[in-house]
């Protein structure tokens, strides 16, 4: 697709236009960018070792030396939040990409081919969606083993039905368009019509879903960790941090829960707000 002879400056101008005309998107984009930078630069940014305990300093409220306070083992909460951004983003991004890629391809073929394949996949998706999805994810992680990869897989699987349905519906309405037939006359096989012609056209609409889904995926990973599945104890992860901190909330040690919770909330908010802007950026029709 990158065989566009489009000059880079036009794309750049378009992105600037979208961001400028939509300040909320600009804010969300900045937030997301910041988050990614924090995740990448975690070793540089984190003031303390995230796993080194320092019991004399335990349960300190936020202060100048520990901006977000310390936890029950005296670990610096800010450093842990920064390191956790890394893990949580990796989990969310890989889970969402996994479900997006498989879901788009499966849904794309179903929508294009129709017929028996479409009906079978459709029923399978219905069955999958009939489960309480979080419980399904719990069961999968419990069965596959308490590892980060399995959180990714479980999160990907429970998001899959949405992508299949979405891609199927979007491809289905376009499959009889003149430009799809034209692509075949131009020498595309059915396979390449779906992958190289139809799916790129569906991408802008799916961008919204992807962006919302990143937020859910993070919440889902945090949720699994919170109930003790997936990421285990010393590793910094927002869900575990909330889970561990929850014990101390009754004694007024609010920062143990509030700080990672805040990070979680802001991240999810950024992703959710990014969606519409992402669609506008990806859709060439918005460039007038």
């Amino acid at each position: 697709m990158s065989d566009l002879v489009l000059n880079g400056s036009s794309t750049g101008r378009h992105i600037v236009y979208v961001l400028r005309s939509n300040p909320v998107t600009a804010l969300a984009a900045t937030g997301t960018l910041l988050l990614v930078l924090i995740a990448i630069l975690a070793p540089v940014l984190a003031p303390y070792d995230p796993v080194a305990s320092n019991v004399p300093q335990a349960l300190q409220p936020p202060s100048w030396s520990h901006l977000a306070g310390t936890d029950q083992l005296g670990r610096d909460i800010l450093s842990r939040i920064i390191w956790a951004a890394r893990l949580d983003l990796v989990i969310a991004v890989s889970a969402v990409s996994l479900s997006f890629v498989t879901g788009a391809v499966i849904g794309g073929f179903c929508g294009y081919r129709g017929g028996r394949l479409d009906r079978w996949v459709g029923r399978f998706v219905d069955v999958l969606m009939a489960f309480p999805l979080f419980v399904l994810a719990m069961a999968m992680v419990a069965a596959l083993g308490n590892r980060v990869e399995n959180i990714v897989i479980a999160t990907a699987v429970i998001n899959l039905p949405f992508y299949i349905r979405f891609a199927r519906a979007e491809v289905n309405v376009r499959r009889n368009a003149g430009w799809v037939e034209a692509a075949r006359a131009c020498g595309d096989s059915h396979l390449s019509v779906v992958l190289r012609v139809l799916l790129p056209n569906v991408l802008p609409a799916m961008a919204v879903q992807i962006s919302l889904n990143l937020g859910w995926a993070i919440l889902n990973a945090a949720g699994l960790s919170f109930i003790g599945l997936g990421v285990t104890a010393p590793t910094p992860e927002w869900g575990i941090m909330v889970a561990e901190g929850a014990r101390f909330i009754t004694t007024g040690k609010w920062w143990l829960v509030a700080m990672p919770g805040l990070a979680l909330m802001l991240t999810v908010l950024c992703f959710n707000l990014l969606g519409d802007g992402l669609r506008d950026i990806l859709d060439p029709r918005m460039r007038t």
Partner: protein
Amino acid sequence: MTQDLLRVENLQVTFSTRHGTVTALHGIDIALKAGETLGIVGESGSGKSVTSLAVMRLLDRAGRITGGRVTFEGRDITHAGHADLRRLRGSALSMIFQNPRAALNPIRTVEQQIVDVLAAHGKLSRANARTQALDLLRAVLIRDPEARLSAYPHELSGGMCQRVMIAMAIACEPVLLIADEPTTGLDVTTQQTVMELLARIQAERGMAMILITHDLGLAARWCDRIAVMEAGRVVEQGETVALFEAPAHPYTKRLVAASPTRASTLADLAPPDLARDAPPVVAAPRERKPGTPPLLELVHVVKSFGGPTRAVDDVSFQIPRGGSLGLVGESGSGKSTLSRLICRLIDPDDGDIVFDGESIARTPAREFHLSPRRRDIQIVFQDPNDSLNPRYTAFDSIAHPLRRLEGLRDGPALQTRVREAARRAGLPMDLLERFPHQLSGGQKARVGIARAVAPRPRLLILDEPTAALDVSVQAVILQLLDRLRREDGIGLLFVSHDLNVVRMLCDDLVVLQAGKVVETGPSQSIFQRPQAAYTRMLLDAVPYFDPQRTELLKTA
């Protein structure tokens, strides 16, 4: 002097867009008396539809009336409030649109929709709502009106949908009906009946009508007066016959020249500059050497889609090398199915398709993209708006077959080929970087043609390539196709419902009805002496551009 029913004075409309405000109407003046028919003609983008929407005050939020006045029945409605407008619309002013199917609510029955209109204007007596709806359907001459009441729009044909729209538009007995391209997209025969119906209703009810159309033939036949619009201005206005007999404005002259009459040839339609470039009309050397197979031969081709009737039923014909064949029929006659069969996008159930002596029906359509014949047979699709990938620039669209079929990579070779194809299709090079939504209909049609000729095919299938285009663009595209045939010896299969266009471009003609060949032969002779009744009916329905209205006088 009788008072004008509608008077539009110095009306100006602007649209605010991303790149500042654009003026759509630069102060237009139109007047209409009760019972009169005014035709507004002009090409796309000339502001015809904006005018009607401004009169109805239906402009979308970006559009604003920035000057002038609209007076209806002596009342200034330029700044009338929403409540007043709602009362006016439907009851006094009414409108029908192009693409009636899209204008009807798909999940409500015909009866419900008609009753809605009546109820909205308090013209409904609950007791006999059904009778009222039925009377309206009878007024628009729908066959079997009782059954149609409970039908949903998707169960009706395009012509019937337009009749239902008309029924809704006249439900509250408006004094002015605005018809925006009411017959565009309908079959010629349906076009004629819909227009006859509108004229009849208009005469019966003394209703005034504004007919917006790009088809001069239609305007000439049905309107008392004509206003010609170009780029947001009325450039000429007058009595129909006088105006078309002696057009004064250069734009009107150009439009008149581009509208095919009963006798025009391709050369007649030429804008002067293009005619000069065109080489003298010399028939390509098409006398066949004995023993050379025809370019394309269809042998008893059959295709059905599982229904009780066959979409294509035992069709056989030939196209000689460098020849041109017109495939004519109404929608549902199987002509589009046939063009897809020949282009090998779908498989025939039976029969054979022979290209240059080689049977190509044996390779399944699924694998045909691997066949060396793929690049020899290319197709130009009907609707230019729908046939270009929205994510591709014009360059990418034209490069698509070259990349796929010839394996060309980005580089000077690809650039050269794309530019060559664009040049042959008459597409300006600076448009190559644009996306489809940034191109006009005519430009998109050229991209479609450039894409089809890029791999240097030997047979070009044209599926109603000009149906959605303005007359002047149509004239240019037809000449372009003719030149491709003469200069490059490309064989043409021209699929159309417009017999007149086919006559000008094609040597031979195949008339299809319900999947069967009704008549075949040289197009001139079919045109002069049609044998089948169906062909005669198609011929009679063609709306010629006939300013003297000889046709009308004959029937009157």
